[in-house]
């Protein structure tokens, strides 16, 4: 018996183990030969012989199974090893593009306001004087029109200079309460280091009954929004002037580059201007036929947000489809 067990445990691969299996357990194998002797054994001893034989067979089988498992594991391991590759060669094979940083920033802005139960609204890019200026309390010859160098069409139409006309269209089409944002491209006839003829704005408008919407509410949501966008920054409101809001304010955040100490980006003031806002001017409500309402509005430039958040140095580079810039956002 012992020598048979040794034979099994000495098998070095599955192939030789199989050979041994045939030699031992096969029809013409060693065990079969032993069992064949059974017929020559006299009655009374037969039982004991058979029992002994069965025991030996079971023991051999157990040794065999164990050896089989060991060799099988070895073989799998060898096969796996043979499939080994240098994974570090494959770091660059995936091909993925990227969202444009301005659009991705706009997404982040929209996400916030949608989560705050604002509706997204839109309007045409080719506008008329009424929706872009007149209804927004910018009558003809208003000096504030100088601030917005406008593209005009031969038939008197114009390219919207801000997303504010969407406010007017939305108010004309629906009734208060209103809670909306209008993201989109806007156009001004200007081109230099900090101006491009097209850029993106997000406009916000909230209208409810008279006496309900206040400057304090505006302060609350914009402070929260700016924390969403820029993290832990200080927020400062400064009185300003826009024809369509009164009172109006510009909103600054503490400089995210120098933490308010003063650097080149914030012109050594420690503050970065990021938003304009205010309480909707009664003349705007008048132009859309609203009475007994109150509201706030705000507007921001998406490029400015994207440039600050990602430290993009040149505005114009955002409109060139430059993959060297875009691939950094993969």
């Amino acid at each position, binding site marked *: 018996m012992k020598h048979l067990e040794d034979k099994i445990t000495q098998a070095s691969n599955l192939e030789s183990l199989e050979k041994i299996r045939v030699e031992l357990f096969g029809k013409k194998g060693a065990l079969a030969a032993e069992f064949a002797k059974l017929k020559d054994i006299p009655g009374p001893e037969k039982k004991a012989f058979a029992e002994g034989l069965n025991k030996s067979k079971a023991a051999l089988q157990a040794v065999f199974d164990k050896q089989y498992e060991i060799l099988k594991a070895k073989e799998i391991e060898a096969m796996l090893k043979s499939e080994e590759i240098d994974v570090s060669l494959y770091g660059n094979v995936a091909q993925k593009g990227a969202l444009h940083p301005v659009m991705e920033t706009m997404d982040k802005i929209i996400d916030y306001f949608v989560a705050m139960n604002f509706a997204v609204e839109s309007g045409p890019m080719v506008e008329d004087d009424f929706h872009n200026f007149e209804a927004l309390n910018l009558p003809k010859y208003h000096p504030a029109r100088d601030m917005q160098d406008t593209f005009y069409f031969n038939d008197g139409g114009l390219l919207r200079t801000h997303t504010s006309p969407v406010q007017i269209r939305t108010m004309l089409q629906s009734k208060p309460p209103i809670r909306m944002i209008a993201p989109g491209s806007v156009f001004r006839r200007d081109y230099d280091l900090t101006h491009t003829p097209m850029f993106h704005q997000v406009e916000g408008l909230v209208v409810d009954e008279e006496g309900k919407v206040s400057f*304090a509410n505006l302060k609350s949501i914009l402070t929260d929004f700016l924390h969403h966008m820029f993290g832990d920054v200080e927020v400062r*409101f400064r009185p300003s002037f826009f024809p369509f809001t009164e009172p109006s304010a510009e909103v600054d955040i503490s400089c995210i580059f120098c933490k308010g100490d003063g650097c080149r980006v914030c012109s050594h003031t420690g503050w970065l201007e990021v938003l304009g806002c205010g309480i909707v001017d009664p003349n705007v409500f008048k132009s859309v036929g609203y009475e007994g309402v109150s509201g706030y509005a705000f507007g921001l430039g998406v490029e400015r947000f994207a440039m600050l958040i990602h430290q993009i140095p040149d505005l114009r580079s955002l409109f060139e489809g430059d993959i060297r810039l875009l691939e950094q956002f993969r």
Partner: protein
Amino acid sequence: MIVTRGWLSEFIDLEDISDEKLYETFNSIGLEVDSIKRVDIPSKVVVGKIISCQKHPDADKLNVCQIDVGSGTRQIVCGAANVVDAEFVAVAMIGATLPADFEIKFATLRGVDSEGMVCASSEIGLPSMGKGIMILDDSIGELEVGKELRQYDKINDTIIELELTANRGDCLSIHGVARDLSVAFNKELKHIEYKDIATEKLGIARVADLRIKGEIDANLCYKLAITEDFKSQILIDLRLAMVGVELDGILANILNYSTHATGVILRAYDAKSILGDSDKMLLQVYSEEKGIVSISSNDNILSIVGVNQNDAVVAGDSSTMLLLESSYIDPDILVEAISQTDMQKDDFYYKTSRGSESDLASGMSYLSNLLSVDDSYRYYEGHLSVESKWEPTHISVDSKEISLLIGQEIERNKIITILKNLQFGMKGREDNKFTVTVPRFRHDIKNIQDITEEIVRIIGINNIDAKRLSFVESNRLTDTTNRYLFKKSLRNRAVSAGLYENVSYLFSHRDTLLKYGFDVVDEKLDLANPIAEDLNTLRTTLLPNLLDAAKRNVNYNEKSIGLFEIGAMFDSQREQREVLSVLFSGQNATESVLNSGKPKMIDFGSFVQKLGSIIGEFSLVKCTQSNGLIHPYQSADIIYRGQKCGYLSKLHPVVQEEYGIEDTFIAQIDMDSLLPIHIDVTPISKFQGVYKDLSVVVDSSLPYSEVDKEISSLELEILKRWYPVDIYSDESLGEKQSLTIRFYIQSMHKTLQDEDIEETISAIMDRLEQSCQATLR
């Protein structure tokens, strides 16, 4: 608007106010500070008195001066021509360090010793005042020889640039800014004492007469003065330079200075050139159009109020008889009138169009005070003036309403105090309601919200507590919101397909569009004032913009360029629609071990795959679109949910060469047709299905879409789907090719028998034989 601390101090006491406090206060009351700069004249720059000045023996352009600098006399060589006229000058002593680390040392110039330097303003940290050295006078304070110039507060000043909003014309003067500060600091403005000016025995009426024709909208005041000459004052020139006003003649500088200080529009006429040979002038004031007020004499227009002045009668430094004019015109009326004309406007128009100061007497007094440096300056008795009718604006105010707008209780008394300080009039102060009268210099204030803005800026927005707004909850997922959310997912799929998002201008070059056979916006509807020739029209396709971007990337050495853009484009009638445009140029994959660094160029199939992973399943038929970018034999209409939604094409090789790019594919797809639709699920069969291939020989010119159409028209219930899997041609097939189609056959009701399958296949074969002249391979 630029102000200086020293100049402001003429009008308001700022002694206990630091520069930092000034900066903070300006910002908090809505006068945004663009920059704040402290002039810092270096030490050891002192007042020097020139005792003598002689030509340098060996250099024509140099002078050798003996200068008393308090501690003794120094010999200093000076190259400036105007030193010969100077008495008091700024002397940088040996050891002084001027800006840009310029250290003054003992020097010998062409053999003559020089102990110091006579300075120009720009050499000691002051703004440049033109050629030559700075000649001092006591306008900056009493001159003491040897005293350091940095001790003179009037010039060692702080320069503050304010960015004024368009409504604040009242702050376009030093006085106006001081007036706003006086409210913020709760300090009264200083009372300015002017010196008495000698008068001639003659009255102004003896020389000039004013005649008004009809209604006019301007206020005018005239005075007549005689003088022998004008004296320049260093303080005037320096301050003008500090606030960015270009220096001119002495009289012009004084006029500009007075206007910048008081906000009153001040002009001077050479009275003698108006008089000519006569001894009396008749000034006629009339208005042919509302808002355009002309002043003329002898049919000669002298000026248009608030707009310009006739050069021929402008007084200069040689004038001896001056007709001084102060004027005011309502800016709203003026701006509207001017916009209808192409009248030439001078520098004052910026002020008059935003609202100049209407207190004409204040301007005239300030001006005369500066002109009358000695007894030779005398007035003619009296003045000539005209005033337009003006009704002040009254606004009824409810302090509760103001509190509601602000969102915080503001006490009634506080509101009243602020408004009074801002020089608003008050009437009927019972309860919360009262009526305020708006001062004339605040023509921008028209309603209660304007008043609220005044309250907000004076109490400071940062003193208002933020409060959450409670609002009616509602489903605000509008169509636009959903469209935006869909576009966002589409953009993310495009990114996963290896494309970069592009953003380009809404503009295009009309010539480029025409060259490639695109529609262009009708000329009658096109841009009137484009910003540049190559952006002179609205785009009617996004593809040239993507091609431009591809070209730029090739220049940057990119080899695989995948771009997409979702954006607006227009048709010839300028109707806007939104499209998804895709471009892929160059290598189909990144260079890697997978392709031994030599990836294949993008091809039709790979491009279709990319498109499919963005928009989902579609089919292609022969392209019906035609433009110069399209390759006539590798282009297709995209059929999406049974409708044509756009096209894709290989870029025409000629265009490819023009742009200098590698193999390129383009697509343009209408966004509207991609929007998600409602989907109902078809039940899935429980029975085993079977794949079956069929190879047929058809004409090489027959597009697969025709074969597809025929199979589809059979409407076989158990034929679930089919698709081409192979195309084969060889010489034996001649003009024909072998097409292998794979069919998936499955029944909803039973396991298919061989005869069911054969029946289906033979039905297909029959149809293809009949309609497509197909034969079995």
